[in-house]
Every structure is written in structure tokens, then in C-alpha cells.
């Protein structure tokens, strides 16, 4: 009598398991065929099948999240394209306007030269814009290959500073430097570092009113580069967007600022394994870059 009961119980459990698995297979086939939110469910209570279904459902959830992220990225891209069109449209319209003016007989030769200068400068703006977009897109696609070698941050920083020297003195900005000379080399890409410093200075220069402060020193086994400028264009609420694409303090995007400079800096820094933060203290805007890949030994 007892053995019969035991046998019946075992048979029951076996059939139950089989039915659960068959049910799950059927549901999975249906899910693959149609566009559905459903997850796999139990046909009847069963501990181990439940665990298996949980894992599979985890995968399904991942798949759905990826689709959602993909959609979000597509939307983002469309927005970006709209922004790019907007940014390109204004200088282009201007150029077209001026070329039309050039055809006008009533315009003097002097004025025509002036117009040609304007067209050239607008065209250069367009070029810078397009280069920035191109670079950014390649950065985002992780297509830029870094040539990693030991580089001296101090040397590169000084080179960039020298290039900006004329602009800075021309605008009458006070420069304050605090640079450590004997820093250990950092494993990085020379061009990327140059680009980083260039963009940082360009940003400080463009937005700084009267003072720029640069420091680069060894702190806690890491090198920290800080670029600070005083400004009245940024509000505390903007700080969380500071590295966003197309973010500019000028809301109407009327100037020549692409809003991509800092975005590129962040991507490059993080691509090299470093960290970047931005801070705002009263009217002082500051960017800190922490380099971690120091050459050992």
C-alpha cells in the first residue's frame, strides 16, 4: 500500500515537472514570435523550474531594457541631429546672405572685402563645428585609438599655455600658475592630452572675465590638474549639465560656442582612465582632472 502511494507521488511530481517545462517552452516560443512584455510563468508550483524561469526572465528583462535604451538613444540622436542642423543653419544662412550681397553692384570693393572676411570666418566656424561633431561621434563610438605612451603633462600644458598666450594677454586676463615641474609621466595619448588642455583653456578663456588660475600637482599618488576661471554666466542649477552635449551658457545658441568642448574633454579624460569634476564656488568655475595612470617606478 505504501509503495503504491509513493510510486503515485513520484509519478505525479514527474508529470508536473514535465508539464511545467513543456508550458515554458511553448510560452518562450510565443514570446520570441510576438512583441510582448510577458515573462515566463509557472504552470504549477515547482521550486527548481521556478528558479530556472527566474533566470530566463532576467534575460528577457535585460533584452527589454536594451530595447528601451536603444529607443532612448535613437531619440537622443534625432535630437542631436536637430541641434546640429540648427547650429549649422545660422552661419550658413549668413554666408548665403553675404554671397548674395556680393553679387550686388551697389556694394563697394571695400565692403566686398569685408563681406568676404565675414564669410571666411563663418565658414571656419562651420568647419570647427563639423570637426567637433565628427570627433565627438567617433569618441562616442569608441573609434578613436589612443596611442598610449608615457607623456609629461607639464610639457604639454606649457605648450598649450604658450599657444594661448597672445589671446590671453590680448583680452587682458590675469593668469595665475601653480605648476609642479617634476611630475612622473602619465600613460596617455599625447594628442588627446593636448586636446584636453586646449579645450579647457578655450572654455576658460571664452567665459572668463578677468582671472584664470591653472594648477597641476601631485596629490595622493595622483596628479590633479585644475583650471579655474571667474565667470558670471553659470548658475548652480546648470552645473549638472555642464558636460552635456550642446550645453552652452548662452541659451539661444547665438554665439559660436558649440557646447561640445567640455563634452569632448570628459570623454577623453574618461577614455584615458582619469576622472573629471566641475565645481562652482560663487563666481569661480573650476574643472579638476585626476590622472591615475601614472608610470610605475
Amino acid at each position, binding site marked *: 500500500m505504501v509503495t503504491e502511494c509513493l510510486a503515485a507521488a513520484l509519478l505525479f511530481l514527474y508529470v508536473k515537472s514535465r508539464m511545467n517545462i513543456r508550458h515554458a517552452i511553448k510560452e518562450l516560443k510565443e514570446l520570441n514570435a510576438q*512583441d*510582448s*512584455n*510577458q*515573462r*515566463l*510563468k*509557472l*504552470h*504549477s*508550483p515547482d521550486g527548481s523550474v*521556478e*528558479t530556472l*524561469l*527566474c533566470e530566463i*526572465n532576467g534575460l528577457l528583462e535585460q533584452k*527589454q531594457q536594451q530595447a*528601451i535604451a536603444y*529607443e532612448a538613444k535613437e531619440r537622443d540622436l534625432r535630437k542631436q541631429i536637430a541641434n546640429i542642423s540648427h547650429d549649422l543653419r545660422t552661419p550658413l544662412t549668413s554666408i548665403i546672405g553675404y554671397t548674395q550681397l556680393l553679387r550686388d553692384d551697389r556694394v563697394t570693393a571695400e565692403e566686398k572685402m569685408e563681406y568676404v572676411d565675414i564669410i571666411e570666418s563663418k565658414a571656419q566656424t562651420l568647419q570647427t563645428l563639423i570637426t567637433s561633431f565628427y570627433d565627438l561621434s567617433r569618441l562616442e563610438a569608441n573609434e578613436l585609438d589612443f596611442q598610449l605612451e608615457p607623456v609629461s603633462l607639464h610639457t604639454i600644458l606649457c605648450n598649450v599655455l604658450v599657444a594661448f598666450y597672445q589671446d590671453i594677454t590680448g583680452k587682458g586676463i590675469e593668469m595665475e600658475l601653480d605648476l609642479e615641474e617634476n611630475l612622473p609621466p602619465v600613460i596617455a595619448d599625447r594628442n588627446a592630452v593636448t586636446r584636453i588642455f586646449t579645450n579647457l583653456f578655450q572654455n576658460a578663456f571664452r567665459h572668463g572675465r578677468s582671472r584664470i588660475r591653472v594648477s597641476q600637482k601631485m596629490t595622493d599618488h595622483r596628479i590633479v590638474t585644475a583650471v579655474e576661471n571667474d565667470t558670471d554666466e553659470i548658475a548652480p542649477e546648470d552645473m549638472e549639465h555642464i558636460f552635456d552635449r550642446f550645453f552652452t551658457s548662452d541659451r539661444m545658441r547665438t554665439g559660436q560656442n558649440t557646447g561640445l568642448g567640455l563634452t569632448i574633454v570628459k570623454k577623453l579624460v574618461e577614455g584615458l582612465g582619469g576622472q573629471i569634476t566641475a565645481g562652482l564656488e560663487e563666481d569661480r568655475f573650476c574643472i579638476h582632472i585626476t590622472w591615475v595612470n601614472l608610470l610605475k617606478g
Partner: protein
Amino acid sequence: MKEYVLETNGLTKRYGSAEALSRADIRVEKGAIYGLVGNNGAGKTTLMRMVTGQALPTEGELKLFGASGLRDLNRARKRTSAVVETPSFYPYLSGRDNLEYYRIQRGIAGRQAVDEVLEIVDLQDTGRKKFKNYSLGMKQRLGLALAVMNHPDFLILDEPINGLDPLGIVMVRNLLIKLNKERGITILISSHILSELSNLATCYGFIHKGRVVEQISAEELTSKCKDYIEIVVEDAPRASQVLEGKLHCSTYEVLPHSTIRIYHYEGTSSSISKCLVENGVGVESIQEVKANLEDYFVKLIGGEIC
């Protein structure tokens, strides 16, 4: 080929001699948020009860995900979730235990499913509080939690905003929009608070005294209840002559007290007043009015207020 999540053909429900729902033809497209609009007692809940299987139709056909027939309908219902009228749970169990009960019943794998949905509706800190001690807002949220726990493709909600505080309303709205946009969940939502629906629905079904009076997409509706220009004139018949003759405008309505409403007018209100005055029709006042959903609905059901 449009895919319909819900289709009814001639769906009718009779109680004795009274028809709570007469020959309803509804189409809910996949991915839509379908707003079912009607006064209390118009038949919204009756319709929903038949969709969920709580009530059996007297006449007519019902299709869920293309399936009809009792067995297929029940299988299709496993892809749906419904909160019809006030959410009901066992009063002597906590919210968590209630959800666990349904989780086991619906064969949802993994205990964490309960914690996940409680977090979504912000009820994760209720501990062992029994359902009978829940506020109305908490009850509504628990109902929503149950509804999303089985990852439905079709959500049926009967007046889900009822009794919620403003914060709760915002949470529900955002949740529904997120579910619809991100996961493509089709939603059928009924309400008599039209303003809430107007922020949500992509498609409307107007129901009155058991009849589906109209089904219309949100875009069509906005264009139909477009802004109008309302002028009060001295001489309405003359004004209408001028409108037709000089302004070539035929889409207008003459209302009592020499008031004229002009729809679909391309120009400015100042051009209308200028034209009228030039032709000897005095204009007492002119203003641009944004029509709204309520007006449309009231007009649609013939101005009857139940």
C-alpha cells in the same frame, strides 16, 4: 494591418429589460492609451466587466488579442491585468502577503517580483500593516502594483485616479505614460474626469446611456474641438452674411444673445472685426477661445447632464 488588442462587435448586456450596454463596437489598437469617457452609469464599468470575464455578454462578440471563445479568451486574459472599481484585497492580510497570494496564483516566478512592484508604487515600507488599514490612496497603489506584477501587454483601468491625492495622480500618470512609451503596454482607462484623460489618451471612446457614441483619435479630437473665435455683434444675421460673403467663412455657429462662434478660421480675429465694422456690423466684443474636451463631450451627448 492594424493590430487590435481589444475588439468588440455588437456587445450587449441586458439586466432584465434594461440594457446596460447596447451593441458596443470598440476597437483598441495595440500601443494606444484608450480613454473611455462617460458619465457615471453610462456603461463603462459594464463594458470592462465583460472584457475581464466577470460578466457574460447577453449578445455580441468580444475579442482579446484576436482570440474569442471562452478558453482562448481566458488564455488571452493572462496577458492582461485589470483594476475594475476599487481595488479589492483580503483585509486581514498585509499588502505584501496579498501580493504574494496573487503571485503564487498567477504562477509568477520569483519572490522578488513582489518587492519590485511594491517599490514601483512606493509601498515598500508598509511592513505588516493589514490591508483593512490602508488609505484609499494606498489601496489604489496596491491595485496598480498587482496589475503590473504579471508584466501585462494590456492594462484595463476603471477610474484609477479616483480618490488619489495630487501627488498620487502625478505618480500614476507618469507610471502609465512610462509603461506605455517604454514597454508598449496598451492601456484602456475609463474616467469621467476628462481633463486627466486629455493629458494621457491617444484615442477616445465616448459612451452614453449604454451606447458608444463615438470613437476618435486624439489628433482628430484636438482638431475638432479647436480654438474658436467668439464675437458678440449688434446684428447677427447681417454678421453672418458678411462672414459668408466677404470672409468666405462657413464654419461658424450662431448662438443666443447675438453671439457667433467661428471655427477653423485661418486669419486673425482683428481681420474679422475689421471686416465686420467696415461692412456696418457693430462688434461688441471679440475673443479667441480654446475649446476643451468637456465642451465637446457635452455637445456630443446632446447637452444632457446626468
